[in-house]
């Protein structure tokens, strides 16, 4: 006869409610783990999908995922000349928050090196890749944009031609893919007045110098388009991504590029490490601490509940001892209930989480490793939490029956 099962049958309502409570706590533990996994997965999605072997960034910086990095766009031509380089593409990525149809639209603007890259590598759920050099974008479904929808950014209007799913940046914002030129246009968009003021400032700077006075044409150029002034560089990009030819050791190519005094080079693994242990490290540790706290809280709550359940049965346990019941029977009664409580809680956490987590604003990614890990934690906390009840039960004297 299983005493634990009989007791549970007798107190099924209370036991079920307790299991639900434990299940909700464990669901939060599982959710925390899922949020962390989701953050890592989101952070790595661009690095993984772009598939670059090397990232060439501003000298002494660690690249666009860690800090501001500015390199000239024409660096890509220099890189293509390096032996072993198969392709080099500009990489532009920045966040913008704009108003769209009365709501705040926050997105990660990602530049594709058109025409070599039209976004064909992006997995689309609807629509098509970019088909022209300007005014088109591919948007992640999380941005809430529909196929064919028009989006005004700066002075230009862009049309959504493709929809992706699961393409979000490390901050959780959905990614919008533009051509690099459009991405830069969005990034460096200035109002007409700001442009006029900048032109006037250029003219004033030229007037104040000898060369402006001896070369009047400079004043005329200074008050015109920026692109008409050779001294002004084209807008910078965040990085250049490099793919090496098949059979080439990326480290060898990296060593060549690293010798250049104006740039730094990082491998794909460097970027992954940077994202996981650099950018989201604090969030990772914070979530980790929350998980530890929640596990401790779950253990304490389970221990209190099991202790209370044991106290309720203390007279019966004394009676069992009086009848000569072995300690193993008493321990089994409490431990089985603890494990069942933990098991039910785990099942509730899993099922309820599977229903609720997809509705969260950020991705909650539950991996089999995390599930097994939580299962092991549940077994551990079940055993630990039953310890107090077991201790109490084993200390009860049979003559307690007489009181």
């Amino acid at each position, binding site marked *: *006869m299983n*005493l634990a099962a*009989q*007791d549970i049958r007798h107190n099924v309502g209370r036991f079920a409610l307790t299991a639900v409570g434990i299940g909700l706590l464990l669901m939060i533990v599982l959710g925390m783990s899922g949020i962390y996994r989701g953050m890592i997965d989101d952070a790595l999605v661009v690095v993984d999908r772009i598939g670059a072997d090397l990232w060439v960034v501003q000298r002494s910086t660690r690249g666009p995922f860690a800090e501001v990095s500015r390199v000239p766009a024409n660096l890509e031509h220099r890189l293509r000349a390096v032996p072993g380089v198969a392709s080099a593409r500009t990489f532009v990525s920045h966040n913008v928050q704009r108003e769209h149809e009365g709501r705040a639209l926050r997105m990660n603007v990602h530049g594709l090196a058109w025409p070599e890259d039209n976004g064909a590598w992006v997995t689309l759920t609807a629509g098509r890749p970019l088909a022209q050099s300007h005014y088109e974008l591919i948007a992640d479904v999380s941005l809430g944009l529909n196929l064919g929808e028009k989006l005004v950014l700066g002075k230009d209007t862009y049309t959504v031609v493709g929809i992706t799913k699961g393409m979000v940046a490390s901050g959780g914002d959905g990614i919008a893919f533009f051509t690099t030129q459009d991405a830069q246009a969005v990034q460096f968009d200035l109002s007409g007045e700001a442009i006029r003021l900048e032109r006037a400032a250029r003219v004033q700077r030229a007037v104040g110098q000898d060369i402006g006075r001896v070369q009047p044409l400079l004043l005329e150029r200074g008050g015109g388009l920026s692109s008409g002034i050779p001294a002004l560089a084209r807008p910078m990009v965040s990085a250049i991504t490099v793919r090496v030819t098949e059979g080439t050791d990326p480290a060898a190519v990296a060593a060549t590029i690293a010798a250049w005094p104006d740039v730094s080079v990082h491998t794909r693994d460097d970027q992954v490490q940077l994202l996981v242990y650099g950018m989201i490290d604090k969030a990772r540790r914070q979530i980790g601490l929350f998980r530890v706290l929640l596990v401790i809280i779950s253990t304490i709550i389970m221990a209190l509940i099991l202790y209370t359940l044991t106290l309720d049965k203390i007279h*019966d346990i004394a009676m069992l*001892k009086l*009848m000569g019941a072995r300690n193993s029977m008493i321990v089994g009664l409490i431990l089985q209930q603890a494990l069942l409580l933990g098991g039910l809680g785990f099942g509730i956490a899993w099922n309820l989480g599977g229903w609720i987590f997809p509705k969260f604003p950020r991705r909650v990614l539950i991996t089999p490793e995390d599930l097994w890990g939580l299962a092991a934690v549940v077994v551990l906390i079940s055993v630990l939490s039953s310890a107090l009840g077991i201790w109490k039960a084993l200390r009860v004297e*049979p003559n307690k*029956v*007489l009181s």
Partner: protein
Amino acid sequence: MTNFPPANTPAIEVFNLTKIYGSGNTEVVAMKGVTLQVARGQVIALLGPSGAGKSTLLTAMGLINPPTSGRILIGGVPVLDGPLPLVSLRAFRRHHLGFVFQKANLIPFLNALQNVQVALEINDVPPRQARRRALELLDYLGVADRAVNLPDALSGGQQQRVAVARALANQPDLLLADEPTAALDSHRGRQVMELFRKVAHERGTGVIVVTHDQRSLDVFDWTYEMEDGVIHAGAKSHTSTRS
């Protein structure tokens, strides 16, 4: 059904039992020099006012409250020498003793049958066999029809019958009952007392009953009086007969 030991074998022998609680100024002598022998198949009553030491003697004989000094033998086996156990007390209780109290103390989440069955399973009887024997015992005690009822659904008398069945489950040498009829009306109290006599005489179990109930003394083979921790010579009942 069972091979019972010879009726003339002592179920329990206690020699010079003394129990002292506290020490110095707070010392209380609850039991003093008690010597008693109960044969198998005998049913005896322990009488006396509150605080006389009846329950102290009973719990000492039940191996749940060892005496300060004295010796206890159960079924001829020395089990306690003063407070020192000579055997594993819990295992010994499991095999040789049965208890009935004022309250039935049935386990509330087990039905009547399971309450008896669990006593057998504690003694390593396989579940199927334990169930069959538990049902036989409930039938013997006249409560088989309430086998599947939880204790809450049983009357006080029925609960006590189930408690007696549980106490008898492992065919103990000795059944100890502490005020078993205190919570019952006189009619049901009498029924329970007669049940003890039946158990003692039919199954060869030694039965010791602590009671205040003077109306049922005729069911006992012997009655003993306790006062101030001292037991007085037993009196043989004139109406009790071995069946």
